[in-house]
């Protein structure tokens, strides 16, 4: 039997962006107001996409899907969902 090269084996490797640059799915962009944010990390824990930095509370927009869960759960109202251009 002919040997199968690595490229043709049905094997995948862990990598960010396995679903593409999912930031392009976004209709609304979550924007954090650092003046209001208390750094409670609630947005970080609920973000399904793991795109929020838990210390800085900054968002990786390359992959953030704009689901709005962070803004809904934020107890201080520090995150606003702004329409993408």
């Amino acid at each position, binding site marked *: 039997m002919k040997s199968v090269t690595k*490229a043709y084996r*049905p*094997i*995948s*490797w*862990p*990598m*960010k*962006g*396995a*679903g*593409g*640059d*999912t930031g392009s*799915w976004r209709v609304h962009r979550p924007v954090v107001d650092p003046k209001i944010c208390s750094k*409670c*990390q*609630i947005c*970080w*824990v*609920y*973000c*399904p*996409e*793991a*795109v929020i930095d*838990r210390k800085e509370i900054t968002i*990786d927009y*390359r*992959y953030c*899907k*704009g*689901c*709005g*869960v962070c*803004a*809904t*759960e934020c107890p201080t109202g520090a995150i606003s*969902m702004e329409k993408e251009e």
Partner: protein
Amino acid sequence: MTTSIKQLPDIEQVLSGNGACGGCPATMALRIVGKALGSNAIMLLTPSCSVASMGMTPKLGYNWPCINICFATAGSSASGISHALEIMQEKGRLQGELPTVFCWAGDGGTYDIGFQALSAAAERNDNMIFFCYNNEAYSNTGVQRSGATPRGSFTTTTPTGKRQPKKNMALLMLEHNIPYVATATVAYPGDLYDKVVKAKNTPGMKYIEILAPCYLGWQFNMPETVQMSRKAVRSGSWLLWEAENGKISFNNPSAHIISGKKKAEPVDEYLMKQGRFSRLLKGSDAAQRIAEIQGDIDREIAFMRERAKITI
């Protein structure tokens, strides 16, 4: 004490930019599970949203060795792997701590199609954690009814609302006499984390079921995944409990509902937020059908309260 948000470890096993819908409860839950299990684990998945969410070859959205297996075989495949690992260790071909073998299956892959293999693995008390993320339907194929779909819910195969109640799957697993069973949901990440840590440190068969409110199947607004999860618990539609060696204890806020310290919220408000119940709520027999749903919840609460009293 439940682990607080700030105490949760940094490790991320769900990688950004995977293929799940925005606001997906399955990835939300899996992220927390990853923090508890760490990287030394092997994941088995049956056909589901979580498989579709892995992304496209040659990339993989989860940071574990993942095996996609046939729908009916999660329990038996995990048994095989778990035994193989033990034998490899015995023969000295594997050093160090054995990886945690875990299944990550939907409610279809657990309540229905995967039930036989799961039941058999539980009866053998094989060493694994079986997770069911329960979005109460076959979501990946367009939302068909499953054994976990609650009474009254619209799916594409129950166009006038399901007429039967759901199974109590976690209770069925408890009655397999396995060392650990727990229920959880995404709104309570510390509770979920602690349960997974407990399961990881318990030898034998462990079953953890996570209620996963899916905006697409349940028809609510995408940002409200966590809100819906909280409402499910507060209305008593979903009870948080765990059982170590058959002894049940309830976790807050369900513990208050069970003890009677706090009343469960009426189910109407929870139902009204979800499009999958809207046809039922508009029908001429709405009052009667809501009463049936409330009846299912009340019966479950009463039953679990009494079941928990059996501690032998």
